[in-house]
């Protein structure tokens, strides 16, 4: 129960709950109301951005499981997104499989390939692992660019409009309908990831991250944990990739470059390493920066035309600045800032 001195539990059952206080339920209800009302309040353009954010949330959650919870740094995000996208696009377009099935297979395939590229993690740590995963990024991108049968020699795959059991996304309501689909999937993903971290497997991940030798000593199977972490994380990322393919309706390698891997790392750094909620905040923050900058530049174009002219440069600068500021001021990201705000209010007028 929540008091002015903090949150206290009177039973194990209470402690194990996902949410502890009434305020948390209230915020959840507000958030749900906000999310459910978005399509009625936003225009097509902003809803499109909301959809990109929802997909990014899935990818960021996946990456955070690996980097934040298991402590295995990965620069291979873009590559794994590509695996998911190309697998699902090819299975549904050329294999003729129903989309949900092809997405499910894409998730499994990405998990498998993720586990394969995770094998070096058994021997490598830190920077060395980062370079190994960088190799996986480059290898996967090389493959999707060079194996022309993947794209029938065209260099890209076209994906037809999403159709699930006879129901097809309509042109007029494209963003709205996709929003509901993505919101449902993203909600499930966030819930699944949140709960995964409360299981024995999730705790094993964290033990590996905090001190792998100690973890091994208390009986955590390091090999299995690390490979599973790669597989689970890549599975989520593969889902994000597959959804990207069906949502954007074109799969090209240009969408899965190293920039994307770095962008996702930025999301979890800004949001909060080792926090599912942080992945969500980070994805929203990083995806909104360029859009909001565009808006600001447009508003100020009469006063300062240089803003519009140099927009991409400014975007890069702000992106870099945001990461530096977060690393300096709050390395644990937006999630930690939010916790501090809540604590401040809860303990007021005391300091702690």
């Amino acid at each position, binding site marked *: 129960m929540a008091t002015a001195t903090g949150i206290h539990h009177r039973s194990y059952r209470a402690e194990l709950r996902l949410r502890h206080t009434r305020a948390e339920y209230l915020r959840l209800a507000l958030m749900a109301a906000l999310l459910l009302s978005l399509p009625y309040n936003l225009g097509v*353009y902003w809803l499109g951005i909301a959809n990109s954010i929802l997909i990014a949330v899935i990818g960021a959650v996946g990456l955070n499981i690996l980097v934040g919870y298991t402590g295995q740094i990965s620069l291979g995000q873009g590559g794994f997104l590509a695996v998911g996208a190309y697998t699902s696009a090819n299975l549904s377009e050329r294999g003729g499989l129903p989309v949900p099935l092809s997405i499910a297979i894409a998730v499994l395939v990405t998990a498998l390939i993720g586990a394969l590229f995770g094998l070096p993690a058994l021997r490598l740590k830190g920077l060395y692992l980062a370079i190994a995963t960088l190799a996986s990024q480059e290898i996967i991108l090389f493959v999707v660019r060079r194996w022309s049968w993947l794209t029938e020699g065209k260099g890209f795959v076209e994906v037809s409009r999403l159709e699930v059991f006879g129901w097809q996304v309509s042109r007029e309501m494209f963003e709205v309908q996709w929003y509901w689909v993505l919101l449902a999937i993203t909600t499930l993903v966030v819930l699944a990831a949140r709960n995964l971290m409360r299981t024995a497997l999730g705790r094993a991940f964290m033990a590996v991250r905090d001190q792998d030798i100690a973890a091994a000593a208390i009986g955590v199977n390091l090999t299995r944990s690390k490979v599973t972490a790669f597989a689970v994380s890549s599975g989520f990322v593969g889902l994000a990739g597959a959804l990207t393919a069906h949502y954007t309706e074109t799969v090209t390698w240009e969408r899965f470059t190293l920039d994307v891997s770095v962008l996702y790392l930025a999301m979890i750094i800004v949001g909060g390493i080792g926090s599912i909620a942080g992945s969500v905040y980070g994805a929203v923050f990083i995806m909104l920066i360029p859009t909001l900058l565009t808006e600001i530049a447009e508003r100020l174009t009469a006063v300062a035309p240089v803003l519009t002219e140099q927009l*991409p440069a400014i975007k890069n600068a702000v992106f870099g600045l945001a990461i530096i500021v977060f690393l300096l001021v709050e390395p644990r990201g937006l999630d930690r800032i939010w916790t501090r705000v809540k604590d401040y209010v809860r303990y007021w007028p005391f300091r702690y």
Partner: protein
Amino acid sequence: MNRKTRRALALTSALAAIIALSACGGGAASGGGGSTADSGPIKIGIIADLTGATGDVGTPYNEGMMAYIDSINAKGGIKGHKIEAMSNDYAYKVPTAEELYKKYVSQGAVAIQGWGTGDSEALRTKVANDKLPFMSASYAEVLTDPAQSPYNFVVAPTYSDQMRVALNWIAKDAGGKAEVAVFHHDSPFGTAPVADGQKWVTEKGLNLGFKAYPMPKTPNQVGLLSQAKSQGAKYIIIQNVSSPAAQVAKDILAQKLDMKIVCLNWCSDELFIKTAGNEAAEGHILISPFAPASANKDGNKAVDDYLKSKGSSLANKGLHFAQGWHTMDVMAKGIEKALGDGGTLTGQSIKAALESMPAVDTGGVVGTGKIKFGTDSHRGSTGTGIYQVKAGIMTEIQAGATP
């Protein structure tokens, strides 16, 4: 029912409600295919690369488009409608291009001007669904087929056609058996004409050896040249932008190799000559569907006059400026016809107008001089000029060469 199952049930029913809502959701109506009121502006969305990987040629192209719009608006617009150009830099990043595209659609654009191969491909199905005519500086073969790309219009000869013209010229120039090396950018843009080139050699029975090499991102191209040398290549066709092509020219000079470069359109410009230097560029062949200032074509006079009034000149801005200008001109001609045909101006009516309008005379600047689309082909032109670098000047050796 215990607590767990009850909660699961609640969750499932909530999800069911969400999915059910999706069938009837309402607020965000479609913004696609916006129409123009009687004297309202004509909104055109422009996706430009000013600072990205191809910004060196993308900037004059975009300036050319904006200059055309500026000049036509100064004359009162198209049939009394001013063009409102929404032009933004996407830095050659496909996701940014998609974001910009969505923005233009929601702001009621009736036509889109794109730029690269990546964004043209990514937006191809979207413009077809949203029924918005789309032109870009990507001349890939697939974009010319209305069955596959109903709303894409290609004003210049495709990369494949340029490749065919290049091979024909080489076969004639060599006068016998010759080896050809194709150096291409490592991307869909680079590989676009390679397979068609190989096919052309076999089909036409040209007495040419043909081998393609992706260009590495190394500071010099000596390694690639030594591969070409061991192939015995006398001709090097380059499908890449100017700076790497100029590097090849410099390396050929430095290595004292007996090779002739044949550039397809993205390295056929004044920038190639400037970067390579007059000595290294001398004698190389440039296949350019757009006439440079040095060719003195009638169609470029208006462009030059406009620039002179602004204190510049076409020779100064380079041929990509004219390329942007004339591409926008073709779109404007389509819009003019659509307005003349009556009804509201939509992407659909512009498409119909572009397909049915008489050939646009570009005054000898683009391809064979005339650009014509039909309902069964969006290939605006098949001809291209062939130029040779002589003392740092692009000198026309053949105009309107067709495969």
